[in-house]
């Protein structure tokens, strides 16, 4: 278990998980333009990489796609559920899959918001400003 001994720079730490580098870059860019204080934006291309980053760094907000190789977003969120120390992390799903079936599947996985692709930058701004913990 990693303990966080360094003082954290002010602002939120984000983790963006998507197998598309373009989508990760776009979300990262919006996050830095919203006026919400952002310390670091980490990136992962699938659930396995995401878990490694979650174990290494305290993360305030997780953005994850669903359909990804190696480990899907749903599987990632199930893994997150098993860690009590990660339960305060905000979890946002970002996916083209807005089907009723998928939403029901993830309903039990404590997602705070569900962003359907395609989305305009303003939509991501609205979600981040709504879910971002105040006073961070």
């Amino acid at each position, binding site marked *: 278990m990693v303990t966080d001994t360094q003082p954290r720079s002010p602002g939120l730490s984000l983790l963006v998980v998507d197998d598309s580098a373009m989508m990760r870059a776009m979300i990262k860019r*919006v996050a830095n*333009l*919203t*006026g919400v204080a952002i310390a670091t934006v980490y990136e992962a291309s699938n659930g396995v990489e995401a878990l490694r980053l979650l174990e290494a760094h305290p993360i305030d907000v997780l953005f994850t796609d669903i359909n990804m190789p190696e480990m899907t977003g749903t599987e990632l969120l199930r893994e997150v559920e098993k860690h009590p120390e990660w339960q305060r992390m905000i979890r946002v799903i970002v996916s083209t899959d807005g089907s009723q079936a998928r939403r029901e599947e993830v309903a039990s996985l404590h997602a705070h918001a569900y962003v359907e692709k395609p989305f*305009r*930058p*303003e939509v991501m*701004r609205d979600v981040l400003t709504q879910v971002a913990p105040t006073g961070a």
Partner: protein
Amino acid sequence: MVGIGELAVGTQQQDVIITHALGSCIAVCVWDPVAQVGGLLHFLLPESKINLQRAVQQPATYADTGVPLLIKEALERGALATRMQVHLIGGAEIAGGGGAFNVGKRNLLAARNLLWRHGVLIKGEEVGGSLARTVHMDVGPGRIRITSGLDLVREF
């Protein structure tokens, strides 16, 4: 008063910027409440490459030369991109006007693209449809009133 292919920026509490006859054109309104800077661009077409000479003489004609200029003028007067509140008005499809070319939609997409490129997010839009709109912007309070004929269509 801002005509087609023109822009204006104001910094005084009592400044008012007005533009008429927004059909397929787009009005881009920016307002920084802290710096008290307000600006309005009324552009006609999306891309300047069709007439580079005109783009030099009258950059506000096109989205790709007008939007950066509007932002630059606002920044020079103390506005900040992250504080700017931006509204888009217009982009209507006027029957018999643009026809199959869909200028209104193209202008709207171009405005959104240019603003995103310059790191400016949009607060609100009153766009599309088939109304010809007039915009009245009070710089001090940053209030935007949008009318069509005698009717108040929207207020931001």
